[in-house]
């Protein structure tokens, strides 16, 4: 017998309405109505493109030292001034964005991947699997992250890869809890029973039936997470335990700027890298909150 496609059973008019109102379209529409979220999104686009195309946008080599031009104030030549080695702060800020964003995105992607797998297993299987995995989450969460971060980074030697590994090692727990909670809810849905009754494998149910329904909160958590990692990484680099000079990162630029003599002679030097961190984290937070509101069915039409 010839297979009849499912949509053949759905009335033409209904189908049209549905496709006009897909989840993605509704979300985008509602996201665009949130001014702060759109501003945050545009700011992120500028920062990301600025860091990707930094070599074409800035006129100075971020590593080029010029001892004749140490600690110059902002000018048409050096928009953000120069640092203690006469390097151009504007170009260092843009090259620093590459490192900060790379660490942020890589750590969050890794953390989301690990956290989703563990949370999915805990939520799907429940029982002792859930119990063991959640006790692991409790254990990782028990350490204030900065102590564990610093300790592991000192054991592993600070390098970009190691820093990302440590952030993944400590960052998966939030996603794991979130995904577990979503999966516990979704597990009770009828379509999961239906999928089980036709003999679908557990992996297939988890990947294709449960995960798509839990993806919204995961995306929101990831967006907010990038801001958090950027803050933590810059703090670590500020202490001299993160990205090592001469590679510029927002955190280690501030480390160079913290001496009292520089604060007296060149107050613009600590100002700009910190401002970039603030704007970037704020932008990720706005976009994350905007996405959350846009995907929340309870807030329908009230925003």
């Amino acid at each position, binding site marked *: 017998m010839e297979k009849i496609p499912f949509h053949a059973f759905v009335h033409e008019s209904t189908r049209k309405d549905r496709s006009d109102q897909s989840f993605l379209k509704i979300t985008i529409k509602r996201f665009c109505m949130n001014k702060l979220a759109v501003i945050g999104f545009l700011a992120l686009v500028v920062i990301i493109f600025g860091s990707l195309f930094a070599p074409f946008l800035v006129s100075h080599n971020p590593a080029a030292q010029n001892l004749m031009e140490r600690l110059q104030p902002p000018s048409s030549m050096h928009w953000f001034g120069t640092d203690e080695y006469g390097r151009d702060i504007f170009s260092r800020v843009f090259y620093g964005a590459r490192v900060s964003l790379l660490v942020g995105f890589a750590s969050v992607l890794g953390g989301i991947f690990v956290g989703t797998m563990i949370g999915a297993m805990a939520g799907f299987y429940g029982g002792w699997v859930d119990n063991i995995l959640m006790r692991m989450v*409790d254990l990782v969460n028990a350490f204030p992250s*900065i102590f564990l971060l610093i300790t592991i980074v000192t054991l592993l030697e600070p390098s970009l890869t190691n820093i990302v590994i440590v952030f993944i090692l400590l960052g998966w727990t939030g996603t794991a809890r979130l995904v577990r909670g979503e999966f516990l809810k979704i597990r009770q849905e009828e379509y999961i029973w239906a999928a089980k009754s036709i003999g679908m494998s557990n992996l297939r149910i988890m990947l294709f039936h449960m995960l798509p329904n839990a993806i919204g909160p995961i995306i929101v958590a990831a967006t907010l997470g990038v801001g958090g990692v950027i803050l933590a990484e810059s703090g670590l680099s500020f202490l001299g335990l993160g990205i090592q000079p001469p590679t510029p990162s927002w955190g280690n630029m501030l480390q160079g700027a913290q001496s009292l003599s520089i604060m007296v002679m060149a107050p613009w030097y600590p100002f700009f890298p910190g401002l970039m961190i603030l704007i970037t984290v704020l932008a990720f937070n706005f976009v994350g909150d905007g996405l959350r509101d846009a995907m929340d069915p309870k807030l329908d039409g009230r925003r």
Partner: protein
Amino acid sequence: MQAYILKRLLQAIPLLFGITLVSFFMMYLSPGGPTDLAMDPKIKPEDREKMMAALGLDQPPWVQYLNWLFHFIQGDWGTSFIRKVPVMDLIWERLPQTLLLMGTSFCFAALLSIPIGILAAKKKNSWVDYTSTFFAFLGLATPNFWLGLLLVMLFSVYWNIFPAGGIASFLSTDSGALDQLKHLILPAITLGTADLAGLTRYTRASMLEVLGQNYMQTARAKGMREWVVVYKHGLRNGLIPVITVFGLSLPSFFGGAVIVEKIFSYPGIGLLFLDAVFQRDYPVIMAITTFSAMLVVLGNLLADILYAVLDPRIDYK
């Protein structure tokens, strides 16, 4: 209620063991330390083995762990490689300073966030609400080390109102307490700002929920004055979740103290920890990491118990 508290206490025990296990194995896997010393080619292999045996390093790891745990529970947290002093003494010496700093910034955050949060909730969608929301967003996204640097630049370098670091001045006309307070203000603001922002948002959300409850309408219907309704009926319920958040923010205060103490050269646990990190003083690093985790478990426990005590609606079974 007692049964609930006892149950929560018992649940914390395996977690504490887990913490010691993680701490021990980090130390076990760390490069350097006494075994590195034994790699010195001038030391004969027999002597090296004798030394390892004397330190108990020839035992299998789990025996070493149990040994370490046995000492740890008794309060013997090892001896600092660099300072040659028991780690416990170092921590006890520095702890009061850190607690003072945490307490001050905690007061700063609590005393400002609760009134602002209530006001923002009462006047929802007014300019008060929008301004507080704006600053809360800003506070949550500001890196604390940058805020610290800016505060030092403004208040110490330009205006010279507050000292840039330390806990006491060599030459000061102020009395001891005033001098100490002056040294506390900038670090406390730096440490407390993020929590101030978070708690303002939290108080606002909690109060908004309470203000919409039926018992608030009932209280108004009884003819009570508005401030009695808001502050007596509303606040008491609205603050329950906020108080538990204070318990949960204990780790962020303790962790934040590391960076803040570094900026202000404030001699507390955080600075002790960073010094130990740069000197590779593993016993100190491990002891403080373990100690911080125990503090978190304690904070969570406190938050849970406080919630149970404050909210009679919780079902203890």
